[in-house]
Every structure is written in structure tokens, then in C-alpha cells.
């Protein structure tokens, strides 16, 4: 898979500033290339620009300067619909606050991206159930989010993120709202997803322990990349999969 010549994500000279009142520069001249199947931990203190970077990568936001390429295509030049479809099919997103739709049950939440893509109700539900089984939470499938624990919600969110079998998984502090034990469960779930599907994973975290699940570690400080280390032993480990 690493033979694929085009990197899955390329961030080139990106600057992102917010100009409400005083100008805040959330990201400044960031370059980052992420290859297929990599697991990258993005670290840094609160306010260092991690979420901003993730939002740019998934096309929810556009950079003030520079380019973000997904599979070689500049997100900024695409229409909003195209960006949205990429998010729907090619990127799974996991959030600190789970972000499930409160009115839908677990299975309905998971089936939602499928149904947005025009898949018939029954088929979508079947696939969703299968995916829920994979994340190991079948007994909660027909409950609404408010009837689930944080860990269960995050598992549903992961199932939703994986429903299209996307090449990229973006996780913004997925364990931030969970106790360390449940957090560990979620991280191993991500780990098994990676080994099963070879999914590229971007994991935003400021938890050292969580970062150990990734072979590459990018550290941000005040919107700049201050460190980019790759643990080669772990890379080798991946390619053997």
C-alpha cells in the first residue's frame, strides 16, 4: 500500500487565521504529508491548532493561505458538495463529544451516511448492524445516545465513521471525554481497525499514552509544527500487516 505514489493527505504551506477583532493565527506555514496507512498522532497543548488542522484536512474549513490536497486534489478548488461527499465516503470522523444525533438510535446514527448516499433503508440498517457488531456493541444498537455510556457512544461514532470503509479516519481527542480504562478500549478498537483495513488514522491527542498507538508523532506549538518524529520500528510493524 505504501507503494502508492500519491500521499493521501498533503498540507502545503498552510496558514489559517481568524480575523474577528485582533487577528488570531491558528496555523502558520504548516507543511505535512501523510502517506497511506500511516497512523499519525497530532499533539500539542490546548489552542495550538490541532483541531484547526483537522478541520482543514476534512474540508470543513478552508485555509487562509496554502493548499490542502486529498489524494492529490486541492480541496479548496472543489465544490462544497464534492468536499462533503469526500467527508461522507472517504473520511471517517470521530469527535471528543461523540456528536451523535440525539434523536436517532445507534443503528440509525450509523446508517445515516449510507442513507445520505441513497442506500435503501433496509440495506443501510443491515450494514449498520454489521458494523456495530464489529465495534462490539450490538446490544446497544437500538438505544438512543442518551441511554448509552460515553464509551458506548464513542463506539457507535466509530462505527458511523467506518461505515463506508474510508481510507482515512480523523479523530479529534476521541478519548478526551472518557475515563482512562474506556479510553484504552477505544484506542485498541482503533488499532484493530487499522490492522484490519489499513486505514490512515490521524489521532489528535495530548495524551502521551494514546500517542504510543501511532508510529508517527507531529507536535504543534502556537500553530507551527515543532516536531515530526517517526518510530521506524513501528512502521516496519505496520508494513508487515
Amino acid at each position, binding site marked *: 500500500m505504501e507503494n502508492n505514489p500519491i500521499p493521501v493527505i498533503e498540507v502545503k504551506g498552510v496558514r489559517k487565521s481568524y480575523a474577528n477583532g485582533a487577528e488570531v493565527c491558528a496555523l502558520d506555514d504548516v507543511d505535512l504529508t501523510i502517506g497511506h496507512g500511516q497512523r499519525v498522532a497530532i499533539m500539542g497543548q490546548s489552542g495550538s491548532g490541532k*483541531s484547526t488542522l483537522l*478541520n482543514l484536512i*476534512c474540508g*470543513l*474549513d478552508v485555509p487562509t493561505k496554502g493548499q490542502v490536497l486529498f489524494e492529490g486534489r486541492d480541496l479548496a478548488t472543489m465544490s*462544497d*458538495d464534492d468536499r*462533503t*461527499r469526500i*467527508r*461522507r*465516503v472517504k473520511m471517517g*470522523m470521530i*469527535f471528543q*463529544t*461523540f*456528536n*451523535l*444525533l*440525539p*434523536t*436517532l438510535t445507534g443503528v*440509525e446514527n450509523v446508517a*445515516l*451516511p449510507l*442513507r*445520505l*448516499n*441513497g442506500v435503501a*433503508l433496509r440495506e443501510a440498517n443491515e450494514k449498520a448492524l454489521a458494523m456495530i457488531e464489529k465495534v462490539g456493541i450490538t446490544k446497544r444498537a437500538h438505544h*438512543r*445516545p*442518551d441511554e448509552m455510556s460515553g464509551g458506548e*457512544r464513542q463506539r457507535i461514532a466509530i462505527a*458511523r*465513521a467506518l461505515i463506508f470503509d474510508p481510507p482515512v479516519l480523523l479523530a479529534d481527542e476521541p478519548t478526551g471525554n472518557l475515563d482512562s480504562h474506556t479510553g484504552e478500549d477505544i484506542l485498541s478498537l482503533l488499532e484493530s481497525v487499522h490492522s484490519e483495513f489499513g486505514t490512515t488514522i490521524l489521532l489528535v491527542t495530548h495524551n502521551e499514552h494514546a500517542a504510543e498507538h501511532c508510529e508517527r508523532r507531529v507536535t504543534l506549538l502556537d500553530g507551527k509544527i515543532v516536531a515530526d518524529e517517526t518510530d521506524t520500528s513501528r512502521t516496519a510493524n505496520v508494513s508487515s500487516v
Partner: protein
Amino acid sequence: MTGVLTQITSRQWRIHYTRLILTIVGIALGVAVFFAIQTTNVTLVNALGGTIEKLAGRATLQVTGGDTGFSEDYLKTVRATPGVALSEPVTETMATLAMPEGEKIVVLGLDTTSDLKLYSDMFDEKGLEVKNPLAFTSKADSIAVSRKFADRYGLKDGDKLPLRTQAGTQEFTVRAIFRSAGAGDVFDGNVAVVDVYASQELFGKKGRFDRIDVMNSPNVTVDDLKQRIRAEMPAGITVERPERRSEGLENTVSSMHLGLTVMSFLAFTVCAFLVFNSFAISVNQRWKEIGVLRAIGVTRGGIQRMFLTEAAIVGVVGSIVGVGIGFMLAEAAIGVVLNVSLTVYGAAASPGALEFNYGFAVEAIVAGVVVSLLAAWLPSRAGARLDPIAALHDIETRTSKDVANLPRLAAGVVLLAAGLLLTTFSTPTVGLNIQLFYTLLIQAGMILLLPKFIEWGSRALRPLMNYFFGVEGLIAVETLIKAPRRTASTVGALMIGLAFVYSTGAYIISQKAAIDGELDRSLDVDILVTSSQQLQTTSNHFSAVTAASVMSLPEVAIADTLRISSVNYGGEKVSLLAHDMKSYFAMSPNLLEEGDRQAAESKTAEGKGVLISKNLAYRGNLRMGDTVKINSPTGTLELPVVGMLSYSRSEKGTIFIDKGVFQKYWNDTDVDDILIDLRPGTDPVQFKQRVQAAIGGEQDAFIYTHDEFKKWVDGLIDQFFALFYLQMVIAIFVAALGLVNTMVISVDERRRELGIFRAIGGLRRQVMKMVLLEAVAISLIGLAAGAITGLFNAYFLVHTAARVVAGFSVELIFPYTMVLTAVPFVIVVAVGAAFLPAMKAARTNVVEAVGYE
């Protein structure tokens, strides 16, 4: 602390200003309808009363004898009564100008040989322009007009003025112009004066006066003099202070006012829904804020006060705006009201300037604030009772759990059943106030059942939405199924608004159908010739000669003459119809609902009995054989009831007597309608021309075939309900506003959800479609709920209200086609209402929305 909390609230306003504005508009509309109705009503009553009082001049008492007037001999009696300082005979005729505009003008017949001290306002020396007083009295064609009227038509001394009279068009000559003051100022100056004795001739009032205006001498009180004159007069003649007469008119238009009051009540209900809705959402939205405030030590009372203060402020602002809008609405409505008053009740009034009544304004504002406080009470209490810990929890815990619980459902079913059963079985004697309570039970029951109803409705819509609109439709209804409480207040507002539209529509249709049936039975004639296009009129009658010339046309098989007037019965103005009973029965054999046809025919024709309308029987608690006391200008008649029929001409009731009796006791041979059955083979169209020729083409005459007449009556009913149609428009508008409100709120509230939806791959288009479909689903469910509630309300209206107000027994016909035709309309309104919110939803900034708390 209140200061800090107010500041927090004002911060909210800045963020959610659309919701704030919509809430204010909601209150404003409720207040506007209320204020407009009060203002219109008081203007109408003042105009009616003012007209009477102005026409009375300086008279302190007026002697009147109903629509037909009374014998001129009574003038002597009045003048002979000690204590009478001044007394003037008067005829009063609403005439039509024989000009293309056909304007109405009130023609007063006054004794121009007297010095008319009673009317000094209009005839004072400075205001009166008369070249030759002697010529005025000596020539029968003399007419005096008001300054205003003269100016409007550019009339000066010696000009001709053609008027339609019973004897055809008459040319009058202007010989005096008086000041537009007092009686000279009514009907916007459309007033003319002719000599009273000339007017008797011209307007078919030979030997009769309409009124005697009296002023007491200083040594006797008005009441004493009233008693003295009263003692000299038969029962059919009324002696009253002018002010008291105008109060009677208020009673005449009371049922119109009642209908309007019910409407303002409804407008407030819808308004309360909007406020409730808005505050429920506000509390929901500020969940976390409330949690934080509670956590840092704000008391429950503090939280509740924060919301109620907001409600009070919004209520005051909305109410003040509402009073302004209401005044404009009143301006638009007053013309319609005056028209109805004239056509339906025969009560004419000149539209005075609309009066801004500060008392009503204050009342309306207080009502607006109270409604807004009441509506905000439950949400604010819910906010205050919030568990701070749960409130500080995440969005996922925010969904309401206590939706459609069992006690609530049970209560709803019980209330609904109680309301319906009471409507069906309660005795009518309990009074309208208690009966209005039945509808409140019905509405309350429906409101309690709403969440369940929304759930059922959504489930029913689900497959349809899926089939037609795919996943967005499905998600839209699923949102409804999962969160029925969020939409409950909007569906409620729609339900109440549409229920009002449907029940009014049902009532109008039912009433029309009932009258249609009545006309088939009680007016089973080929041709109807009528002298006036008003239901009640004090002018424009055919003379007996004219009537005879029509009836003697060779095509006529049978003819009946009808004289329409009214009598005071039990303190109310009851219609009195004088038919040629033999012919009447011959033409309309299926007339009676109760009583033997043969016996009734011979009894009435001999003047030994009367027919009465069923509503009079109901209102007056009369049975067959009971004696009816009728006060005529020449004495009291006591006749037994020998037959009853459904007849809705007057909501106060109708009495039918033979024309012989009428002519004898009322001294009046005029005819208002001529009812004709034609010989077989006669062409009605040609016959109509023959009638026109026989009448001479100069007097107003309206000739209808049976079907045309029915259409005309239909139009009259529409006119009577014109204001209700206006209110229906307002109700729809308010309901649409409620929908806009909800959609704005829904989009606002679900900002985060929509953000998530977008984040995981929902297209803008899909978001928009989803929001629009949600609005469509809400409005379809609201429509269904409205139709059901409307059906119940209509049942109440025909079963109870029509009965209590007018004694009518009307069979309910529900306008199913109206419900169905409303479907596309409501969908369009829903899409229109949701369009901007949907656009806003599609443009949600995902990053902010997802991080939104």
C-alpha cells in the same frame, strides 16, 4: 442580581433576534385582533347611537312605532299631553339619488312651517341659507340639503335633485341649504329635508309619521313625561330617550359582536402558543446556561424571574406594536362592519372617524402582557426546576423524556370526551359562558393529545415521505417522531388556527345549506320581486298599486305579497312578515315543520293565528297553541301559534301573520316582496322584463328567479361573514407565522445536529430538503389535527352556539373539500415559511456548530 440576569437575557436577544422578533410579532397580532375588534365594535355602536342621537336633535324623548311608523293622529295626543314643550313630527326615509352613483341619502320630513327649534343645530341663522322661506313650504318639490352635500354635488339654490321614490323618480328643487351639524351631519352629510306632509305623499307614508320628537318643559322630568305619553299610547308604540334607543341597536348587532369576540379569544390562544413555543425553545437552548447559573448560586426563583421578566418586556413591546397594528386593522374593518349593519340589520350609521380609545389600548396591552406571562409560565418553571447536574451534561442527554406519557394521554382523552359529551347532552339553559367552557375542554383535550397525535401522524407520513422524498423525508419525520415535544407547540398553533378556519367554514357551509333547504320549503316560488337589497329596510317599499300591477300580469298563476317589518317581542327586535297566507300556502305547500297545514292555513288567513320560526319558539320557549303577544302601533294582538317552520331571516326570531291583519293593525298597505308562481310555459327571463315594465322602471326593483334569489341570499351570508373571512385570513397568517417561528427555532436549536449532519457528509441541498420536508410534515400533521379539532368545534358551533345565540338548529356539514384543497396550499405556505430557515440551515458553519455549546 436581576440586573445581571437581565443582561444575560439581552445577550440572548442579540444572538437569537429572529426568535425575539417573531415572538413580538406573535403577541402583536393577538393584541391587534383584540384591539381592532374592540375599536371596530365601539365605533360601530357609537356610529349607530350617534346617528340616532344626532337625528334626534335636541329632543329628550322620541315616540316611535317600529318600521312602519304610526298614525299621524298621535301627534295631537302628544301635543295635548301636559309637559310637552316642543314636539315635531318626523318621517325618515333612506332614499337613493337617481344618479349613476346611486348614493343613499337620508331624507327627513320635517314640519317646515314650524320654527324647528328642536333642530337648531342645523338650522341656526348663521348656517341656514334660504332665499324664500315661503316658497319652500308652499311648493311640494322643495328640498333642503346639507352644506357638505351641496358642496359635494355642486348644488346651489334652484338646482334640481332627482330622487327615487315610491312613485318613481322625482325631481326636487334645492331651495335651502343648512349647516352640516347635528342631524345635518349624519351619513357624512348625506341628509336632505323636505316638508313632512310632502314626504308622506312621496314616500308612501300617507297619514303616518315615523317619529315624533319631543322636548319636555322644564317643570316636568323626562321620565315623568315619558310615563304620561306612554299612558296615552297603544303598546306597539315606544316612547324612549334617544340614548336608550341607541342602546337597543347595540343589542341588534350583538351576535356579530359575539362572533368577533370569540375570534379575538382565538387570536390570543394562537398568540399564547407562539409565546409558549418561543420560551420552551429558549429554555431548551439555554439549558447549559441555566445549569451554570444554578451551579453558581442563582435560585430557582431567580431563574423563573429571569424568564418572566423577559416575557413581560416582550409582552409590553409586542402589545404596543399590536395596538398600532390593531388600529390600522380596525380602519380596514369598519367599512365592512357598517355595511353588514346596514344590509343585515337595517341599522344605518355614518362612519365617524375611528376613535382611538385609550381604555381599550390599556386593556389590550394588559391582556397581551398577561397572555405572554401565562404562556411563558410553564417553560420558565421547567427552566427553574432543571437539575443543574443534568443541565451541565452533554447535548445527548437533552432530549425530552416525558413526552406523551400515560397520565397526559388519559387526561387528554377524558377532557376531549367530556367536552364532546357535554356539547351533545347538556341542556341549553346553562348559558353561553358555561357552554364556551365545553369548547375549551375540547381544545385542551386536543392539546394534551397533540404529542401522541404528532407521533401517529409522523408514523403515518413516514412511508409516504420515504417513498416520495427518500432519506431526507424519512429523517424529517423521524425527527418529529423522536422529538414530538419540540414541534407540539407549532402543530398546536397550526391546529388552533386551521381549526378556526375549518370550523368557521363548516359553520358557514352548514348555515348556507340550512338556509338553502329553508328557502326551498318556505319560499317555493318561481319569481321573487323585491324592493330592496337589504334584509331590513325602512324605505323603498312598493305601493299596493305597483304590487297589484305586477300581480295582474297574465303570466302570473299565483302571487303573494310580503311586507317585512319588525316588532318588539320580549325586548328584542323580531322580524314580522305579513304574507297573503292563502297564496303563501298554495305556493309553498311544504312550509310547515310543525302544525297541520290545512288548519294553519285557514287560521292564519282568517287572522286567528300566527306562524312562528323555530328559533323564536326556542328562544321564547313557545309551543304550538301558545299565545303570542304582538304590539302593533294601534294596539296589542294576541294570537295562538298554529304552525312552526325553520326560518333564519332573523337571529332573534320571525313571526308570520296574514297581510289583512297587518294592514288593519299597522295601517300599512306597502309591499316589500312579491312572490310569484308562473303559469306553465312562461319564460322567466321575458317575464322579468314584463315586471320591470309594469313597475315603470323608475323605482328600484330587483327581480330574481328562485335560484337567483338563493344565490343572492348566499351572497348576503357571505357578506355577513365577511369579517370572519378576514379573520380566517388572519388566522392562516398567524399559523404561517407560527410555522416560520418554529422553523427558525428548530434550525437554531438543531444547529449542532445540522452541523454533525454536514460533518459526516450531508450535502447543503440535503440539509435544506430535510428542513423543508420537516416543515411540510409539521404542517400536514397540523392540518390533520386542525381538521379534527375544526370538526369538533364546528359541531359545537352548530349544535350549541347557533342554538344559543339565535335558536337556529343547523345540521353539521363538514367541508371535506375545503380540507383537501387546503393541502397543496398549506404545503406551499410551509415551504415558503421554512425557506429562509432552511437556507440558514444549509449555510450552517459546521466547525462552529459542532463545537457549539
